[in-house]
């Protein structure tokens, strides 16, 4: 070993002094006394929540994402709004009263004294008329136009009253239009002054909160609306952080940076067993539905017996155990429990029947089995589900090849307008979001949706007929039977194997009382301190 050829100690910045300086700097930055770490800023009047996306457009007429609605619902008013709790119900919000006079006429009366900020005056029936009619105006190109598809007009009776006139009866209005994205009321004056639509930030608000600050991709800050005269807002400010990854959000919660977040299904059991200090972990049923779809027009799957073989070869309990950590329950269709149209059972039992699957394949002319392609989104949960399906199906002689896609590629797989990819589509593990009325899920499987969102290319005259009838049907029991029958028709076609509705596990600090929809989605304006 050679000896050092110089005295390094002559150098003024010695190793020790360097380390001392570094440690002192780091220690200073970490000093709790500076009070800059959110986890120390335990101001009970600031609520910090995570949402899975960053709002792009905050004009209620053109916003179409749930995370945009979370903000809009806190800063605007609707005639009626979802009631927090375990049952899908609505309650009056801006309306003093609202009533269905006949299948196509709904009268309403606004509460007097609801004002728009920034001097845009009191909310009137004219604002309601403007807000709803602009959504069906082709000029606006609203993505939620379908929610008001049957709106003929809103007739103003006096300053606070009016009549919503429908061109034909539309039952989902009460659960998916008025209390949801299409129900937000904006100021006619403000929107017109903004040139017909709000840009990134609305110029006025009427809810218990206003948008104080938007830092794209970082956070949205809502602050108490000083002009709000209703029940006081629970917090001085709400900070909404857009965090796509649930695991990151979980760590943010555990570090004390968040008060409420949805967590991953894979973490639910651990968190429930050993929850972080001062936190509550709960699980809610989700409105999402996951299914294995089969392209009925693909030559390999045009024989119903092949499709039925695939149905029998998929073991639902194994998928739920492996991909959903046993947290989710099997689905019986696209309507989850608790909503009109939910089916108690499926035609094909959740457990696989490999012998029956093999027999069906042999009958269809595939005694040595069949090779099929399964398209899956590249998210851990779907990949796991796809691998289980692959392994199970192999036992019935169905050799599946898994193709992974990022979401951009995945969502155009069955879209006819995007070339010929739909022709090669065989099996697809799909997942759609939904709303608390069966119509919302049912609409994607009509004949008109073939090649758009109906990738199975399921065409059934009875389904279409029932779909139209159910939209207008006011009798709850009759609607229930119609939607059950529609899902039965889908399953009987062999093109669908319903898997699960997933679950929504959430975690929140015990210093807040969250207000959640029955599916665990937050209604921020009703959150309060515990």
């Amino acid at each position, binding site marked *: 070993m050679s000896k050092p050829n110089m005295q390094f100690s*002559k150098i003024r910045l010695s190793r020790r002094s360097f380390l001392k300086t570094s440690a002192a700097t780091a220690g200073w930055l970490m000093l709790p006394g500076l009070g800059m770490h959110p986890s120390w800023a335990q101001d009970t009047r600031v609520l910090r929540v995570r949402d899975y996306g960053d709002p792009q457009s905050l004009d209620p007429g053109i916003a179409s994402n749930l995370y945009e609605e979370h903000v809009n619902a806190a800063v605007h008013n609707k005639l009626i709004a979802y009631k927090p709790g375990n049952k899908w119900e609505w309650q009056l919000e801006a309306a003093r009263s609202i009533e269905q006079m006949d299948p196509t006429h709904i009268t309403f009366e606004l509460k007097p004294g609801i004002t728009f900020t920034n001097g845009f005056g009191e909310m009137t029936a004219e604002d309601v008329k403007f807000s709803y009619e602009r959504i069906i105006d082709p000029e606006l190109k609203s993505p939620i136009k379908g929610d008001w598809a049957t709106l003929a007009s809103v007739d103003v009776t006096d300053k606070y009253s009016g009549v919503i006139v429908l061109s034909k009866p539309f039952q989902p209005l009460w659960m998916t239009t008025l209390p949801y994205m299409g129900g937000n009321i904006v100021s006619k004056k403000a929107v017109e002054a903004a040139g017909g639509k709000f840009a*990134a930030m609305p110029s006025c608000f009427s809810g218990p909160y206003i948008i104080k600050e938007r830092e794209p*991709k970082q956070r949205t800050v809502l602050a108490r609306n000083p002009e709000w005269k209703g029940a006081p807002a629970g917090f001085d400010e709400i900070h909404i952080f857009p965090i796509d990854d649930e695991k*990151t959000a979980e*760590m943010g919660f555990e570090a004390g940076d968040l008060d409420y977040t949805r967590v991953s299904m894979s973490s639910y059991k651990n968190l429930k067993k050993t929850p972080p200090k001062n936190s509550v972990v709960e699980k809610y049923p989700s409105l999402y539905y996951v299914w294995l779809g089969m392209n009925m027009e693909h030559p390999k799957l045009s024989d119903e017996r092949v499709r039925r073989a695939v149905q029998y070869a998929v073991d639902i309990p194994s998928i739920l155990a492996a991909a959903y950590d046993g947290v989710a329950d099997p689905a019986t269709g696209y309507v989850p429990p608790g909503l009109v149209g939910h089916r108690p059972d499926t035609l094909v039992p959740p457990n696989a029947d490999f012998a029956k699957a093999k027999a069906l394949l042999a009958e269809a002319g595939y005694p040595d089995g069949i090779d099929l392609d399964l398209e899956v989104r590249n998210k851990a949960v779907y990949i796991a589900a796809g691998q289980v399906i692959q392994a199970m199906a192999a036992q019935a002689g169905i050799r599946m090849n898994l193709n992974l896609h990022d979401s*951009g590629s995945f969502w155009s797989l069955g879209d006819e307008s995007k070339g010929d990819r739909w022709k090669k589509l065989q099996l697809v593990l799909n997942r759609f979001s939904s709303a608390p009325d069966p119509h919302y899920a049912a609409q994607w499987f009509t004949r008109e949706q073939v090649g758009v969102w109906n990738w199975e290319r399921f065409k059934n005259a009875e389904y279409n007929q029932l779909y139209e009838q159910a939209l207008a049907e006011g009798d709850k029991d009759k609607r229930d039977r119609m939607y059950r029958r529609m899902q039965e028709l889908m399953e009987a076609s062999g093109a669908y194997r319903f898997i699960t509705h997933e679950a929504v596990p959430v975690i929140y600090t015990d210093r807040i009382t969250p207000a959640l929809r029955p599916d665990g989605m937050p209604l921020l304006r009703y959150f309060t301190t515990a």
Partner: protein
Amino acid sequence: MLFYLLKRVGLAVVIVVVAVVLLYSMIHVVPGDPASVILGPRATPEMKQELHKLMGLDRPFVVQVVSFLGKVARGNLGMDFFSQRPVAEIVFKQLDETLVLVLASITWAMLLGIPLGCYSAVFRNTFSDKLVGVFSIGVIAVPSFVVALYSLLFFAVTLKWLPAIGAGESGQFLDQARHLILPAFAIGLGWVGYIARLVRASMLEVLNENHIRRARAFGLPETTIVFHYALKLAILPTVTLLGTGIGRLISSAVFAEIVFARPGIGKLIFDSVVSRNYPLVMGAVVVSTVLFVLSTTISDSINAMLDPRVRERL
């Protein structure tokens, strides 16, 4: 030197144009429809068609590329159809965050890596040198996302000393600095090792050169010899490494931005590719390519200034 600079800038422009054309082609080859993502499931085919027209996607590919390059030359990166805001505004807002993160990471890595490298070279083959060697190789081997995750779990979740998510409140310097510590630590740690190894190797070479021996013979203080004469030459490869390292740092920043839920250009590109937001992808890619090319051009120019032989090699 002027001729060298002109050649270098010309080459930089060619690199940017080629990179933009390549990336533009790649993103259009990947299947996926931005209109479906932007408008959501309830969009009608007519609405999708109209958006395609608005985005210029109905035009031939070559026309799209030429039109895009023309706009870029005029400093116009287009509009983001999701948020209806100028792409440049979105990209530069995110770029600020990434640049701060990258600069913080590389600064602390240099502050520690250069002295460590010098120390190792001066005390070569001692126990301390070997210890620094093991440390350097160790931190190079650990991926930055692993450092990010474990530092987050330890310092934010377990000890609760530092925040886990976000970039801090705008305008609050201390809050932003606090939010920067863990991500900068995660990204910079590997670079401490790189820089230490590189500086050590260069220093060993330089310390044996004649002019250093002569300086020592004249009785100059060792501090002056190491930091004034030897380091000036030994730092050259590190400057080059830092120039080309900007691209790698931006890639590492993506992980830190995801793990710490920070805004930044890496995450912006990732999210935009997933949602097929072509205008935003291209805007962000153009800006980061220019940034990368600019940093390599600057580092090459510094090298050329410090070492005239470099000028002859271009």
